[in-house]
């Protein structure tokens, strides 16, 4: 079973003044879909680029099945990183770029590529730099879904995509994953759209991992409690409150952990918290710390 391990990883910029990643320890297991969340500049893209050996860590290491991925052809051939930058010749036609990637990867799924080209209505005769931002993302998405790699990292895959194309992407991602299970690490800000897709959540804030758990586990212990402020305050007293919202006399308290044994006061409602809400609250709390 393949396992991608990140151990004691640090990354500094500007001669050590700016610490982008601080002692990151996380593992990505095979055949899972991870959501990698965090604010802009939290360090998600830097982490992904270090995993794919585009970027170097200041200290620490990335291991694939115990082998360091740095300058390791065998390990790197199992990792694909779809990043926000253009890595392919910008003046080349999309069809030619597809052909190039196909020649580079034995086992590249040409049938899936053709199917996706039709579904997304991508004009393969266009040159890459003539495509809109959305279609640039689509070309990269198609490549990422068709390469035969065991670890696929998608950095903002839905950048510039309209609702229809985002929907196709999510559907095709699930279909592709069901046909050929492999690990996806998806970094996006549109959390509400992928919270049903991800099996695990990793959240980075200020270069540190503040959440790393299965999505089910997180959902089972994150609650929103709303009702009259005094009753909510009394009920959540002593719990791990990660956020509060007030509207007049009413209040919503967001908590993590087990609910108290005591009876829920009348007028107070307890609901499972949406992943997006949880992430936002955790970010806000982290800002306050």
């Amino acid at each position, binding site marked *: 079973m393949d396992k991608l391990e990140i151990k004691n990883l640090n990354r500094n910029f500007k001669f050590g003044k700016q610490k982008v990643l601080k002692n990151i320890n996380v593992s990505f297991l095979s055949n899972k879909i991870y959501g990698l969340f965090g604010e802009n500049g939290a360090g998600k893209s830097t982490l992904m680029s270090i995993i794919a050996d585009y970027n170097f860590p200041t200290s620490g290491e990335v291991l694939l099945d115990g082998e360091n991925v740095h300058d390791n052809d065998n390990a790197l051939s199992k990792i694909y990183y779809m990043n926000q930058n253009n890595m392919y010749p910008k003046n080349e036609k999309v069809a030619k770029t597809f052909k190039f990637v196909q020649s580079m*990867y034995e086992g590249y799924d040409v049938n899936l590529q053709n199917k996706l080209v039709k579904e997304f209505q991508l004009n393969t005769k266009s040159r890459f730099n003539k495509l809109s931002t959305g279609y640039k993302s689509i070309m990269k998405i198609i490549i990422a879904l068709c390469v035969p790699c065991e670890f696929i990292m998608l950095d903002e895959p839905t950048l510039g995509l309209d609702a229809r194309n985002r929907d196709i992407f999510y559907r095709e991602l699930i279909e592709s994953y069901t046909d050929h299970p492999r690990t996806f690490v998806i970094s996006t800000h549109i959390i509400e759209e992928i919270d049903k897709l991800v099996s695990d959540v990793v959240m980075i804030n200020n270069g540190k991992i503040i959440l790393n758990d299965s999505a089910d586990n997180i959902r089972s212990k994150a609650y929103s409690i709303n009702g009259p402020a005094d009753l909510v305050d009394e009920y959540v007293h002593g719990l791990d409150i990660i956020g509060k919202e007030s509207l007049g006399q009413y209040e919503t308290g967001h908590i993590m952990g087990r609910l108290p044994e005591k009876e829920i006061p009348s007028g107070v409602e307890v609901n499972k918290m949406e992943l997006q809400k949880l992430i936002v609250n955790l970010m806000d709390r982290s800002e306050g710390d």
Partner: protein
Amino acid sequence: MKELDLYKNLIKRYLFYLLIFSCVFGLMNLIFNHSPLFSLLHSISYYLYGYTVALVTLNYYLFNLSISSGISRNGLYRVKLYSLSTITFFINIFIFSINLFSYILNNKQTDSIYMNLYFGFFNNNIINFISMFIIGFITIFFIMILFNTLGTFLSLFNVLGKIITFFVIYAMIHIGLISFSIYYFVFGFKNINLQPTFDLITGLNTSTAGGGNTGNPISIAITLILFTCLLLFINYKLTKKFQIRK
């Protein structure tokens, strides 16, 4: 396998660009300048040489293709060496053929530097031509590696860094040449005689009278091989470095 595929892809691209360039440049010269055949071929070979040098300087493009295909930096270095060797081979074949035909069909009239400086060192003409081919390969490969190393070095910087580095290199070369000239012409080399060193590294024996084409090509070959090895090492170290995102 990926390295081989990238190499094939790259060579196809390079050769395609070079072919297009040669055809366009050749046709333009033929139509507008009405150049004679050998003069035209010679000018094509020089411009082709220059164009190839510019092409191999573009390191970041190759880095993008290789890293996005899961090829390590060691693999990238190997791809660079294979492709530079192949391109060198093709350019050398082209230049050598022009010089050879020029020599045979144009009454030995050729503007080849080798012909003017080293041709005739060996008693046998076949050996002279073989030596010319080998020295040609070594020289072109040295220049390719030199410019690729420069391109690799520059690709470590952003646009501002590139401009500053370029001007620093340019200034250093000029300051070096000016200092050397002042020292040579003003102070007249009273204490240090560089002539034997120059003769040793170039294989030219300028202190003796003669036609000037009796230089020893083996000396220049050894010099270029040593410099190429040094550049290969520097290129390897630079290839392994972090490439800044453009």
